């Protein structure tokens, strides 16, 4: 363990250690003002979906991004995948800035629209990248939440899993394609692969469908997998097998995984680090064991206390936060958690606490957090 005063990130390890580095990522979605609003020149409002988050992901690491609905976890994932453009901040993949990649070769890099003090301006990308977003997606793939909706019901498993190979024109011959698909299916735990290739989604169970979706992501041999709530639609008895599969993929292929979930309990099982998000910011980030054993942010503590424990002998006091996550349009001043925080005091309404180091690699954004 490094001494506590060394910043956890940027203790200048070689860049190659990180597969993904995100810094100061912002994304907001402007709301329509309506006719009266436009005529009266009311300031344009926006949903602050992601409001300045930074984190990184090491090679072969599994990081959980945890939070309630509307906290910005999925927006973060979509921004990383280049499916929506970031307003501000940089995303580095393999040490290369990929924030503003164009979709196809020859495309202008995408500029973004940013807003400062109510004025909109066009932000030109800082780099002219050599690769395209499409090319980049060979190396990072995403698994979505609902295996019932993310497969084409009329395509066979073979067709679904082979599609990325065709889109990216990776394989030259049919044999090569078949071999890649077979490998991907078996890596996703569908074995023997031949038995599944000609089936259609309705002939598969929920767990098998999610495995097919994962195989479709694996077939391009990505180095980074973004899994957005991959088990929340699945029955409890098959959740474990999908989570164990993700853990196994990391062990076998050295793949890095960003696991997005609202469920701290599943994250606890197989992730290395946890980042807890609240209203577009990271409230606390640190090694999984540490965050679970010594949560520093009151929000993390509350989240942990309400997770039901499957043991009736351990019924305990829950810290139930009143109300729901506030609307990310009108963010509260000061600490954004203070209106719901059981420990809030005067200063919390005024000061927006930055993430500070509270232990080895463990940071929390709270005025009460104990440094060191």
């Amino acid at each position, binding site marked *: 363990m490094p001494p506590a005063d060394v910043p956890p990130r940027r203790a200048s390890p070689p860049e190659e250690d990180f597969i993904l580095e995100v810094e100061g990522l912002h994304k907001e979605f402007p709301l329509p003002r309506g006719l009266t609003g436009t005529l009266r020149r009311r300031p344009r409002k926006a949903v602050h979906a992601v409001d300045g988050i930074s984190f990184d992901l090491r090679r072969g690491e599994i990081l959980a991004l945890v939070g309630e609905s509307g906290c910005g976890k999925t927006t973060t994932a979509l921004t990383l995948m280049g499916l929506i453009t970031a307003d501000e901040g940089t995303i580095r993949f393999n040490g290369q800035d990929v924030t503003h990649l164009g979709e196809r070769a020859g495309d202008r890099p995408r500029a973004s629209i940013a807003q400062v003090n109510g004025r909109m301006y066009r932000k030109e990308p800082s780099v002219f990248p050599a690769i395209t977003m499409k090319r980049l997606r060979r190396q990072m793939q995403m698994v979505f939440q609902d295996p019932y909706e993310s497969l084409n019901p009329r395509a066979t498993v073979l067709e679904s899993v082979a599609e990325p190979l065709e889109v990216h024109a990776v394989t030259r011959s049919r044999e090569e394609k078949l071999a890649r698909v077979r490998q991907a299916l078996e890596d996703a735990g569908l074995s023997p692969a031949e038995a599944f290739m000609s089936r259609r989604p309705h002939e598969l169970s929920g767990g098998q469908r999610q495995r097919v979706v994962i195989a479709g992501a694996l077939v391009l041999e990505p180095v980074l997998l973004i899994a957005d709530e991959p088990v929340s639609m699945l029955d*409890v008895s098959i*959740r474990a097998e999908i989570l164990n599969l993700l853990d196994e993929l990391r062990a076998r292929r050295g793949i890095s995984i960003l696991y997005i979930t609202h469920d701290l309990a599943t994250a*606890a099982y197989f992730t290395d680090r946890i980042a807890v998000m609240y209203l577009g910011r990271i409230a606390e980030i640190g090694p999984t064991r540490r965050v679970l054993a010594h949560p520093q942010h009151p929000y993390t503590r509350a989240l942990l206390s*309400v997770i*039901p424990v499957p*043991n009736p002998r351990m019924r305990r006091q829950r810290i139930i936060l009143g109300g729901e996550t506030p609307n990310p349009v009108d963010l509260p001043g000061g600490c954004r958690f203070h209106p719901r925080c059981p420990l809030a005091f005067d200063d919390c309404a005024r000061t927006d606490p930055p993430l500070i180091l509270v232990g080895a690699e463990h940071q929390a954004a709270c005025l009460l957090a104990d440094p060191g």
Partner: protein
Amino acid sequence: MGVADPQPPLLEVRHLSTHYVTDEGVFRAVDDLSFRVMKGESMGLVGESGCGKTTAMLSLLRLLPAAGRIVSGEVLLEGRDLMALDEAEMRALRWDRLSMIFQGAMNALNPVRSVGDQIGEALVIHGLAPGLGAAAPRVGELLEMVGIPRSREAHFPHQYSGGMRQRAMIAMALACSPQVVIADEPTTALDVMIQAQILELLERLQRELGLAVILVTHDLSVVAELCHSVLVMYGGALAEYSNVDRIFNDPRHPYTRLLLSAFPDLSRPEGKLISIPGHPPRLNDLPPGCRFAPRCPQAFDRCRLESPSPRLVEPGHWVACHLYEEAALDAAG
């Protein structure tokens, strides 16, 4: 059968079987299910999707879809057999004595009528108020009971958040002060914090109103937090039935054991998640012996030939498994 109690049960279900008759054959969705619920007790009904939980509950209310048939069994509510009532009597009793919070019901609110009106309607239909106007005080009271301010009564469902809509559904289920409330996956689509709020609400209402609650869920940890007794269903039949402490700390049925180990438990994060291999049986094509035998790590010859019926292995603890023999009769208490 029940979890040993001297007073008569509020709700007693005896040998209930419900089948769906379809073109693809007969689906034996509920097979010989028996349990009892006391006043003020909450029972968890647990099992994987498609194991017959919801069908069993719809059978109690006699609200099965057209293909559903209650083949046999008795449902005694305060001593009256619901299966013997005619439709008019059943309609009078439904909601009044026995109500249900349906799965995904928070999305079933009528979008063009205010929430207050929709709750008031239930009161008017059951003759508890002559008109919507007269129902207003009770509607306000019901909303406050579930933690929604009276002032939100005139609002429409789209002005409510998911958690509030679920609260409104609970208020609606409680409109006629029923004795038994069946909550089918009441928190499944909700965030953990909202889930905790709803569970706390159910717990409080149960304590204050002396309600009996049947909580239908696939989430064992919710059951551990809230319920007194637990019935584990597998493939339409009872697998294990006992009080909550025995189910979690001394489970006997191999399925219950596997289900528990498949569940992430924050209190022991070092543990490994174990998945249950295979799939639940198709209810129109059940295996000849025990339904769990094809997936059971402890199955032996008898399991593949003979279907085990529930046996009392100790007072108040029923297990349907050939690994256990009926306990001595005097223990049945």
